[in-house]
């Protein structure tokens, strides 16, 4: 080495930025990546529902086949056989044949192919879960920011309302809303949602979980509000909306994003519970919850109808939770929905 002037600064190392770092963290998180793979498989499978129904099973999963027949081991057998036990009033559908072309998982009490219905039902469940989660995260973020930033009366009113909904049993609230809205549909000004529409459970689930998002975010905004950079922005005369958009929002968005997968899991569980109680997804649509309900009467004879959709719900929500934990660890380790979820 020579005795030249030492460099005054270390060689400039470019920092990869928070999003890039988080993405790297997430990709390195093996359980989270495994969960993402599971989710991908589930989503792809449900997207292939029409393909399976039309070209593999050759069946219409929304049409009853009470007197239909199918082929098992080369023999033609009826899909439904009258019950031999009890009063002989019920029917026993065909059980799992493990033959993808002919009632792979058997039939339900209307002779419909359970496998095909599972794929279609998965579309509904995933759609409701994801859209409800997005909606509730967006709404919750907006409410949380407004309450936290506005303070004063606005904050106390919003917070009181959130507290009440937060403490109240969510399922009861959801059922209340569902019972009312399912008979008449929802008319809110120009917005009309039919009673049978899938958007109805979406709206209900999104509404009841708003406090889960809004409360933690309000807390964050309250802290942010007293940070120097917000004072600086206020002091420099920036309009409120601009401060909210440029200074506050970017700081709470990571937390809101963390909540999306976790919220999707919660929304899917709620949807399935509502559908199970027949106040969620309405026929002719199917979801994993309604299939479990369909299988209720067949629980002791054809348990596959109940077990398969439940396993799929459990698998999907578990994958969402693990993936969500990974996103949380990468983006905002302190983010907490209600409880450990």
């Amino acid at each position, binding site marked *: 080495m020579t005795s030249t002037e*030492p460099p005054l600064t*270390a060689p400039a190392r470019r920092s990869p930025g928070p999003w890039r770092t988080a993405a790297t963290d997430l990709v390195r998180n093996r359980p989270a990546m495994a969960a993402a793979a599971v989710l991908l498989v589930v989503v792809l499978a449900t997207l292939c529902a029409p393909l399976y129904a039309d070209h593999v099973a050759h069946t219409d999963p929304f049409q009853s086949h009470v007197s239909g027949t199918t082929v098992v081991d080369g023999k033609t057998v009826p899909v439904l056989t009258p019950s031999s036990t009890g009063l002989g009033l019920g029917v026993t559908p065909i059980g799992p044949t493990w033959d993808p072309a002919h009632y792979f998982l058997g039939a339900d009490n209307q002779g419909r192919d359970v496998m095909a219905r599972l794929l279609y039902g998965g579309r509904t469940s995933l759609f409701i879960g994801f859209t409800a989660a997005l909606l509730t995260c967006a709404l919750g973020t907006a409410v949380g920011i407004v309450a936290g930033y506005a303070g004063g009366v606005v904050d106390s009113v919003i917070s009181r309302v959130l507290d009440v909904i937060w403490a109240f049993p969510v399922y009861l609230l959801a059922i209340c809303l569902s019972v009312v809205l399912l008979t008449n549909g929802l008319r809110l000004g120009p917005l009309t949602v039919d009673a049978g529409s899938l958007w109805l459970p979406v709206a209900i689930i999104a509404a009841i979980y708003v406090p889960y998002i809004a409360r933690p975010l309000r807390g964050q905004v309250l802290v942010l509000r007293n940070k120097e950079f917000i004072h600086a922005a206020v002091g420099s005369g920036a309009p409120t909306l601009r401060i909210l958009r440029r200074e506050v929002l970017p700081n709470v968005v990571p937390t809101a994003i963390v909540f999306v997968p976790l919220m999707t899991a919660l929304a899917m569980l709620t949807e399935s519970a509502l559908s199970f109680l027949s106040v969620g997804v309405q026929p002719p649509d199917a979801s994993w919850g309604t299939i479990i309900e369909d299988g209720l009467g067949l629980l002791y004879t054809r348990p596959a109808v109940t077990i398969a959709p439940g396993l799929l719900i459990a698998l999907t929500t578990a994958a969402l939770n693990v993936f969500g934990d990974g996103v949380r660890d990468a983006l905002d380790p302190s983010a907490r929905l209600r409880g450990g979820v």
Partner: protein
Amino acid sequence: MPEPLLDVRDLRVSFRTRTGTVTAVDGLSFAVPPGEILGVVGESGSGKSVSMLAVLRLITNPNVLVSGEVLFRGRDLLALPADEMRAVRGREIAMVFQDPMTALTPVYTVGWQIAEQIRAHERVSRKAAHARAVELLSDVGIPDAASRVNAYPHEFSGGMRQRAVIAIALSCDPALLIADEPTTALDVTVQAQILDLMRELNARGSAVVLITHDMGVVSQIADRVLVMYGGRAAEEGPRRAVFHGPRHPYTWGLLDSVPRVGGPRLRRLPTIAGVPVSPGSLPEGCAFAPRCRLRHERCDERPELSAGPGAGAHRDACWLPADHRAALRLTTRTATAGAKDLDAEAAS
């Protein structure tokens, strides 16, 4: 030098990270004789705190590797079974940390936390431990200790909390107290009181290792000084020797950057050029070389601590010729201070 109380030999602490191994402490050796106050100084990241945490085996992260020897009263702490180590912590070696605001468990009273320490090491009744806690609190200068002993940490100010932490540290009369920047988080007036407390403790016979980045604190209290840079010892010696005849260019920088009350008024304080070396990229040779104005070929080789001429206790790790240090220091000074500053100095 008497038989040292604490003798650290070739201590290495490295962190396994995603981007490779990072060495925070790189072959550090030092000794503390009984009853002495050793001041350990250095910038943030120089490995002061980490090395002391490693001495007490308080680094629990499984990704941290500690090697070397830490001989305390002849026993190697790094090789001690966990339960014997526990008996050393708190009773023979106590530690006080930087931030008193978070150092106490928030849900227990201060007295409870002092008594817990006593009862962990001695078979005494709850009542006796409580009485000792009151005594200790009043010893560290907390007024009305008998009632304050039942207060919770959040009811104490920062200075009082640090006193409480020190009371915990003193409760078993440790032979060695390691204080990690005990005054950094406190007001200046409180700082002086806490330093007095350290001195008092020392007078009672405990040795003290005081970690700080404040040269002023060291000059007030230390018997000996250890200057660390980049996880290594740069210079070590009796306080007077180090302050009056510093030998390592890094120590020169540290001392020059301290404002002097009586000295000439400078327009700007001299600083050490460059940024502290990052533990992830320690150079092969002298760690300070990249920032040193007197760097030369020899600096690519790692210097060892060695005594200067005629000064057995004052050692430094630098390749510069041992007998011209004072003159060399002057040349770096003139190089550092800009022409304008010199003008200002002349004008004042």
